[in-house]
Each structure stands twice: as structure tokens, then as C-alpha cells.
């Protein structure tokens, strides 16, 4: 099953919520926008009227206007509106904070239990994604069942990153030495764009990810496909590629369940060919792009930890074949 990189569906993701959490934030945002627009129109209107009405057309030789030093009553009168607005804004934001953010940070076990828990860990520059309930490890893609309440446990391996899927939930920082918990969910199936929003070093720009929301059947299928190790090639190009993968130190950084690897320095590649993208959004995952990527990773994602292995064309074909076999 291949999750083709459908382009993320929304142009204005903040205005196009697809989960109860994002929906709630969006409706608050609309209220705030509306009230701001009204305030702006009033203030800008008053200023415009003042400029037009009281503009001096005599070139500075006209009568001296009345010298008005102000009035306490007026000031207080004009403060009433803003005070009411501020109180109202504080109240509606507080209410929403309690509902959207109601994941106790220190005691993840108290409070409402999630349907699924996903662990996400930011790395320079990819996202490690684990499904502890299913023993699945993956990277740069988060898969969710639709309509469920899912808790993400977020942390970071190195520097501070920030996990943001505007259509689905609030933004949360991934901070080394600290676990943050928040809710995520999707009310309809689809592909949702996620990005790292905290500057995290050289290629912060290429730390994108996608969230795939599946309906129940699809979700079961996905879980089933990913709890198994991939079928390893028995011969041909792909098997030769596996050999290179194991000997040319690829395996020192990338883990592949069933093949080996022990450290998570680079993205786990277990079901690589089912992924939509390469390099945190640098490329759509297809043969041509994979070749481009492997022949010079530093050209496409400067500063990333993957060196140019200077594979000759034949080796390149073999590694590509191997990676493509990881279904």
C-alpha cells in the first residue's frame, strides 16, 4: 500500500480546520478577527474623519483652534468598551485553553484516557514517530485513525523543534529534556501538512511532515502492514542494494526492522517505499527523486547528516531498488 504524496489539501490550513481542536481554535480566531476588524474600522475611521474635517486649509494662518486639555469623563467612557472586550477575550481564551489543552503535563495518566498514544521525537532534521501500542517505528509521517482522540507525547533529541499541523491541532514545542503532551485527531480522512516551526538549525526549512488520517478499515490495514517487517529481497538488484546498505555504513544511522541498525541518528527506513516524501519534504518519493537524493544529499538538504556516498551508477540502481522494495 503506497501513500502517494497527495498535495496537502488546504491553501489556508488555519482557516480549514479538520479536527474538533482546530475547529475550536478557528472559531475563536474568527471572533477575535471580527472584533479586531470592528475596532480597526472605528479607529481608522475616526482618524480619517479627523484628518478630513479638521485639516487646516489656510496654510497655518487660520484661527487658533480651541485649546482642549482633555476630560477624565471622556477617557473613562472610551475605556469601557476596551475593558469589556478584554474581559470577554480573556474569558473565551481561558475556556478554550481548558478544553484544548486539558492534557496534564506532569501526570499523563490522569485525566481522560486517549484512544491511541503516539510518541514523536524531533531530530535535526526529521521527526521520529513511534506507535508504542503497535510496536511501529517510522519517520516524517504520522498516521491516525479518523474520529479518535489521540495523545501525542512530544520531545526532542537535540535542539528545540515545534510540531505544527494547523488543520488538526495546536502547535507544541518539542523540547529536549522535557515531555509535552497534547491531543490530536482528525474528523475526516485526508492528508494534512505539518511543519517544524521553531528554528532548529541549518535546514529548519526541510523538516516538514505529513499526517495521514485513515478511516477505520484503512487504519487496520495500515497497522497490519506496518507491524510486520518488510519482505526482504532474495536476489537481483535489490539484494545487492541491501548488501551495500549494510556495508557502506548506511545502517549505522538508519534502522530497518528485520535488517538491523541500532541508532536513530537518521530516519528509520523500515517501510520506506510506503512513504510519501524524502528528506522532510525535499522531494516526492519516487525513483527519479530517490536517485537524485542519493547521488548528492548535501546538494538538496545542505548540512544534513547524510554524506554523499559517491555511489557509482550501478550501486545507485541497487540501493534504489532495495529501498523501493521496503514496502
Amino acid at each position, binding site marked *: 500500500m503506497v501513500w502517494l504524496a497527495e498535495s496537502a489539501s488546504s491553501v489556508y490550513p488555519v482557516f480549514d480546520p479538520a479536527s474538533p481542536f482546530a475547529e475550536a481554535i478557528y472559531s475563536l480566531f474568527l471572533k477575535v478577527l471580527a472584533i479586531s476588524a470592528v475596532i480597526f474600522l472605528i479607529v481608522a475611521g475616526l482618524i480619517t474623519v479627523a484628518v478630513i474635517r479638521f485639516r487646516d486649509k489656510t496654510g497655518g494662518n487660520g484661527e487658533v483652534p480651541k485649546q482642549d486639555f482633555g476630560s477624565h469623563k471622556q477617557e473613562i467612557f472610551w475605556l469601557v468598551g476596551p475593558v469589556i472586550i478584554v474581559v470577554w477575550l480573556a474569558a473565551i481564551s481561558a475556556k478554550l485553553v481548558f478544553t484544548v489543552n*486539558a492534557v*496534564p503535563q*506532569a*501526570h499523563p495518566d*490522569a*485525566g481522560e484516557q486517549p484512544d491511541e498514544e503516539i510518541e514523536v521525537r524531533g531530530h535535526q532534521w526529521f521527526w521520529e514517530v513511534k506507535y508504542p501500542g503497535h510496536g511501529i517505528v517510522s519517520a516524517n509521517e504520522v498516521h491516525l485513525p479518523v474520529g479518535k482522540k489521540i495523545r501525542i507525547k512530544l520531545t526532542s533529541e537535540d535542539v528545540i523543534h515545534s510540531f505544527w499541523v494547523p488543520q488538526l491541532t495546536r502547535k507544541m514545542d518539542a523540547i529536549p529534556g522535557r515531555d509535552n503532551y497534547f491531543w490530536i485527531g482528525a474528523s475526516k480522512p485526508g492528508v494534512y501538512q505539518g511543519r517544524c516551526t521553531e528554528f532548529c538549525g541549518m535546514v529548519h526549512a526541510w523538516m516538514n511532515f505529513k499526517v495521514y488520517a485513515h478511516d477505520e478499515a484503512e487504519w487496520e490495514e495500515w497497522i497490519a502492514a506496518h507491524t510486520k517487517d518488510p519482505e526482504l529481497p532474495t536476489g537481483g538488484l535489490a539484494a545487492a542494494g541491501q548488501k551495500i546498505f549494510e556495508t557502506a555504513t548506511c545502517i549505522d544511522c538508519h534502522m530497518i526492522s528485520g535488517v538491523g541498525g541500532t541508532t536513530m541518528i537518521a530516519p528509520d527506513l523500515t517501510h520506506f517505499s510506503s512513504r510519501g516524501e524524502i528528506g522532510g519534504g525535499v522531494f516526492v518519493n519516487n525513483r527519479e527523486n530517490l536517485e537524485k537524493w542519493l547521488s548528492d544529499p548535501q546538494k538538496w538538504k545542505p548540512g544534513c547528516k547524510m554524506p554523499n556516498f559517491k555511489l557509482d551508477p550501478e550501486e545507485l540502481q541497487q540501493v534504489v531498488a532495495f529501498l523501493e522494495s521496503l514496502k
Partner: protein
Amino acid sequence: MTGELINEISVLWSWLSPAWLLIGACLAAYLVAFWGGLETRSWWFAGSLAGLFVAYVSPVYALADGVMFTAHMIQHLVLLLIVPLCFLLSLPRARMAEWLARPKVEPLGRLLSFAPVGWALGLSVMWVWHVPTLCTASLQSSWLGVFQDVTFVVAGLAFWWPVFSPVKAQRLAPASAALYLFTACVGCTLLGIYLTFTPISVCPVFARPAAGTGLLEAVRAGGFSAGMDQRLGGLLMWVPPCVLYAGAIVAVCRRWYAGDEEAAATGESLEASESVK
């Protein structure tokens, strides 16, 4: 928090509390003392009484007694800040001026108007009663608890006196009053930060309260953990007092810009003596 919890809390009014005697006695004493000299400002005294009501009759009282650190904190703040402030504001100016001019009372007024005393008292009660051992002790011994409450009110009076003394001559000059309040705000900010962010349980009674209170279980089940309790308490120690102090600074500024002749004159004498030095 859940609706059930709200129901549980709503039965916690201590309607039969002996605190009514205290409230009644205070009201009677106030009326007796100032009868005939009452001014419009005397309505502020209702604020003091309301403060006592919140501290001893409302659910805050029951919750403060070893259930919620937050409620404990609200009780402290009401006793330390609201009750004395409203009382000072309610005092009839003429009567107080006359009374404070008496030879026997005069030294007390002078002591109260010496700003370092009020500042130190106001801040030290905040800090001292949150030393873990003392905080726990005050909850375990009812007499110590009463003593604690009395120190809050007394320290609160001493704290507000240099800013809102009924006698203008005893007030700080505006700039000094602003500094006084600003530094006090820094003081409670630090305490608030400490309570909010420290991993230590400042008042362990609340973190490990004696078992058996169904109420507490309800509170915890509502998702309100001991850690959250302390953090909220810390924020209460921090933000409301600072907002109140900022408000007081605005009041002082208003007084200053109004060019209140009398206040300015007294302020000036202080300032003048300063600049002579």
C-alpha cells in the same frame, strides 16, 4: 472541572461558622468607633467584611483547610491585601486625623508611616508562612492558624498604611510610594515564581493530605493534581497582588497628577529633607 465537583464544592459554605461573630463584632466596633463621623468612604468597610466572609464562610475556608493549596492562597491574599486595604480606605479622614494626633497614639502612627516597616512586614509574612514546616504547622495547629491569620491582617495594615494612610501627612511621596509598591510586586513575583516552578512541595500537607476526604478525591479525579494546585497557588501569589499593586500605583499617579496640594506638600517635605541631606 466537572459539574459534580462544582456541586460538591457548593455545599461547602460554612453558614454556621463562628466567623459571623467576628464579622458582627467588627461591624459593631466600627460603627461604635466612628458613629457620627461616618463618611461616604465608610462603605469601603463593606469590602473588608466581604473579605472576611470569603475567607471564613465561603467554600474557600473549607477548601483551605488541607484540601486545596489554591484556596489556602486565596484566603491569605484576602486577609493580607483586601481586608486591610478596604479597612484603611473606609476610615473617616477627620475622625482619624483627630485620633492620630493624640499624644498616646501618635507614635504608633509614626511607626506605621515608616515605610521599611510596612514593606518588610508585608513581604515577610508572605515568604515566611510558605516555608514548608511553618506552612504545615499552621494547618495542623488551629491556634497557630489563628495566629497566622492575625499576622496577615496586621501585616496587611502595616503594608498599606504608608500608601493609603487616612492622614495625608503619613503617606509616602508619590515617587517613593510607586517604588514601594513596585519593589513589593517584585517580592511577590519572586515568591510566585518559586511556588509555581519549584518541584518541591511547599506545603506538603496539600500534596499528601490525610486520606479520607472524599472531597479531595473528587478534586483529584477532576484532573486537579497536587502539582497543578501548587502552580495555580503560585500564580495567585504572583499575579493578583501585582495587579493590585499596579492599580495602587495608578492611584498614586492620579493623586500626583491631580497636584493634590496637601499631599504634594507633605510629599515635598519628605523629598525636601531628602535633598537637603
